[in-house]
């Protein structure tokens, strides 16, 4: 009997430590877990008109992070990350590698990054507990400080801190996108597929397309927390149209702003897709400013209107 009480006490200690944890601490633990833990996740990516089942395997081989993402439905479409190189293996073209520290797509790369970077645009609030993928989990809301961006919520496994569900919500709290883990397997060591991926000779990192320095674009207004992370001029894939390009980000939301010579066919002023991606166009003289990103279209429109050149 005394042993049982002792066992209960031991069990309750870490739990009570978790009770005191702040929402930010939960997210920081998630960030660390995503970088260091070895696990296999089966997950479903939901958008308004798409459901995609995926498998994500993450581990460490010789102190290097190795990850593998596989699409289970449709033509083969995989991505492998070894260290800071991500190789995309897709059925309709030869494999190619880019330099990146996360595989784009599964979860926002910011989740595995420094969480403090998100504090300018978002507040972290602890929510309730629920059960996901057969595991108890803790809800952490990532609430936008203003109406210029979407909010997020993420459920974290109480055991490993790995995310079990991720929602992106629009301003009306309607679901735009969801990633739902259906099975999480915590591994003792990196599985053989990751060892093979590590040994495999992947194509060398593609030389970055030449980035010509763009004009000195500035914005008279940006939502708080957004910064310019990149400026260049390049040609659009497919149409070869020369554009000036500015990348904006607040950590979670990424917005691309393009300035191009106004063509004959005008684009609609505002355009929204059901998965949250929006596009806003503004005509300034004979130039056309286009803002694209997963943000409310009003924000994009306002950003497009506030661009200036120095």
């Amino acid at each position: 009997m005394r042993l049982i009480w002792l066992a209960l006490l031991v069990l309750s200690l870490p739990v009570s430590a978790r009770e005191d944890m702040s929402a930010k601490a939960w997210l920081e633990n998630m960030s660390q877990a995503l970088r260091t833990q070895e696990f296999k996740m089966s997950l479903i990516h939901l958008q308004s008109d798409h459901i995609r089942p995926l498998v994500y395997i993450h581990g460490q081989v010789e102190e290097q992070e190795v990850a593998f993402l596989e699409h289970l439905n449709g033509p083969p479409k995989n991505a492998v990350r070894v260290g800071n190189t991500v190789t995309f293996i897709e059925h309709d073209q030869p494999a190619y590698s880019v330099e990146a520290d996360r595989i784009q797509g599964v979860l926002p790369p910011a989740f595995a990054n420094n969480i403090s970077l998100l504090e300018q645009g978002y507040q972290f609030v602890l929510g309730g507990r629920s059960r996901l993928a057969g595991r108890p989990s803790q809800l952490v809301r990532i609430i936008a400080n203003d109406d210029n961006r979407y909010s997020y919520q993420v459920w974290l496994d109480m055991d490993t801190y790995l995310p079990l569900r991720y929602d992106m919500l629009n301003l009306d709290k309607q679901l735009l996108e969801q990633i739902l883990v259906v099975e999480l397997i915590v591994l003792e060591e990196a599985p053989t597929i990751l060892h093979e991926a590590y040994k495999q000779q992947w194509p060398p990192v593609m030389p970055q397309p030449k980035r010509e320095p763009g004009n000195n674009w500035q914005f008279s207004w940006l939502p708080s927390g957004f910064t310019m992370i990149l400026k260049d001029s390049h040609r659009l894939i497919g149409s070869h149209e020369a554009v000036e390009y500015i990348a904006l980000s607040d950590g979670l939301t990424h917005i691309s702003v393009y300035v191009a010579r106004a063509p004959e066919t005008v684009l609609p002023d505002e355009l929204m897709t059901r998965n949250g991606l929006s596009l806003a166009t503004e005509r300034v003289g004979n130039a056309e400013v286009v803002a694209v990103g997963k943000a409310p279209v009003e924000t994009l429109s306002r950003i497009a209107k506030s661009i200036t050149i120095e």
Partner: protein
Amino acid sequence: MDKLGQEWVSAAVDGEVEEQVLAELAADTDSHGQWRDYHMIGDAMRGELPKMVDLDLSANIAAAIEAEPTIIAPKRVEPAQTAPARKSAGIIPMFKQFGQYAIAASVALVAVVGVQNYNQTSELDSSPLPVLNTRPLVGSASPVSLQTGPVQKNQSFTNEQVMEQRHRINTYIQDHMLQQRLNNSVNIDDNSDISPIPVNH
């Protein structure tokens, strides 16, 4: 039925035979009339006869029992069976038709999306950077669902112009997605020299 048998029946009426024998007797329909008669005789001897004697009561009861299920069952079952059958006959085809329309509509949608995707890939193949597939690994540029803008202007567009417009929207969205892949390694704090100027609010 011989004399001995008659005695048996008589004994049975007086409750002087065993149960098994009684069961045998019950199976013997010829003895039923005798059984009744002996009871009647016994009753008459004891002066217990009712004023009116229904000589064939057991037969009446048997007939009533036999008639019961055949009379009651149709009364209850018939209306219950026919009514819903008529209702469902009206509803089910309607649902079926609706489902068929929905399926047809979804097939059409898939066809349209499929064509658009096909066009995109063929354009990509002819581009100078064939290695870049801008369709993201997860999350594609789904078909535009809502368009707020100069609708009246759009209506005057020719089909070609609408296609051109759609193509340009797709290029921008694809480039945006591609930039996400390429700029993935660029962190915000790497570019501290470029600072925003949030002057107005």
